[in-house]
């Protein structure tokens, strides 16, 4: 799988406009992806680097307010390759017991 390291933030006056852009450019969108900002609304989208470049360029030519956020240099998340609990090992939570 290609990693999704290209993080862009798109702004618009109304959520409807953001959803329209998302639909047109096949951008990813979850229920909470759209946020109310002090002025208007914004939406974060994560893309692969090649898709990211393409979408940024397209949106810019359409006059959409869009910026790249370079907070995203993390590793691609890892999925457990085996079943850690197959033989009765018990999961541990992240909380400190005390």
């Amino acid at each position, binding site marked *: 799988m290609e990693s999704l390291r290209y993080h862009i933030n798109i702004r618009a006056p109304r959520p409807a406009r953001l959803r329209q852009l*998302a639909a047109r450019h096949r951008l990813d969108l979850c229920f909470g992806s759209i946020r109310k900002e002090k002025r208007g609304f914004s939406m974060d989208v994560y893309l692969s680097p090649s898709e990211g470049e393409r979408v940024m360029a397209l949106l810019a030519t359409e006059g959409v307010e869009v910026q790249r956020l370079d907070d995203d240099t993390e590793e691609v998340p890892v999925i*457990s390759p085996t*079943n850690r609990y197959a033989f*009765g090992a018990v999961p541990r939570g992240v909380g400190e*017991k*005390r």
Partner: protein
Amino acid sequence: MAYLNVDEVESALIAMARQWPTLCEHIVLPKRSCEGRSISALRIGKLPAEEGDMLLISGCHHAREWGGADICISLAADILEAYSRGTGLKYGGKSFSKNELIRLVEGMHILVLPVVNPDGRHHSQTVDHLWRRNRNRSYAGGNPTCIGVDLNRNYDFLWDFRKHFHPKADVGTSDNPCDPQQTWRGPSPLSEPEVQNVDWLLRRYPRMRWYVDLHSYGELILYPWGSDESQSDQPKMDFQNPAMNGKRGLPDDALYQEYIPAADARIYQQLAGTMASSIKAVRGRNYTPQSSFDLYPTSGCADDYAYSLHRVDGRLPKILAFTIEWGRKFQPAWPEMEQIIAEVSAGLLNLGLEGMRRSGRVRITLKTVSLRIEKGSQRSLEFLIESMRPLDLRVDCPPGYEAADRQVLAAAGSRTVRIPVESRTDRGGKLLIHCPQTGEEWEVQIMPF
């Protein structure tokens, strides 16, 4: 560490049920997923399943929102381990005491359903990171991009948006199986087996009180309604009223606003607010509490559906339902996900405790219909009481009788409380008992011999 795969989630639930058989129960849900996977939940709580209020937490309706499942498993493991070792729990700057863990395990139930949509999760973890829906192929016409239903648009709440909403309302759902936003609602409400499982859980327990559906992302705590702005003055302007069809879903208009009783609106805000403060205490992240509609109108979502059930069917309990949109991306790197697990766990435990404290059901049943007392002797009034908070029972006696007021301490389960009444007369009368905390009153006839 790494995100759990779908087999691991099932094994983890089974392992916990084996390790702590007196504290939890592994529940295999009635429907398998579209690809035939078994789906299960874990109920944590020492009381019998039909006693004690219940909090349901579900994750991974949406395939790519991986962390919901990991939150459920970690939270269950934390509660079970801390309780069985007799310790408290600490998440960053937020602590829960040993006694709070006892209240959670002995006074209520926490039911976790880590993966509503295992087929979708598996697909998202192995083929397409950004898969959202389930993997139902029945309506795709052989086109792989049209596979699957958006499970969180498939619930039976104003599902038919073309009929229920205003034509200009910008509802976040779709009747096109190939919708690029993957929000296809499915062929009919509750059509998907994965959604039928959630529905089964919501209806199964007579004291299901709270429901949190975990999604990502946005750092939000959402509560009903998602159909329109809320109002508390016009009960007839509600989702069940067909005269309102075609009017719903426009922002800032007087045409339609969804009815919510004022007391419910208040408690939603309070509970969402207190969850947000617990989350913040862990490491400072600000989750915003708001109504779902504040984002955009939706139809067929789990939270609205769960909360609407008691209005549709008066025999079902009222479920206060929330959606938490955790984190700032779908699949954060694991060290960040661990922090999110910690903060969301703190919010969820707090919801259980606060929910019990504020609205935890108090049930007082008077078992004594009348008292026959001989002059100079004593008989007892008998109550059956369930309460997680202390109560007072105040007794007004007629002349010639005496009874002491009684304080009842909070405790899990139900128990019998007796108040002795003494007679110094051979005349009858009426005893009046009242509970200042619940406002209830009872009358008992006294008949002399």
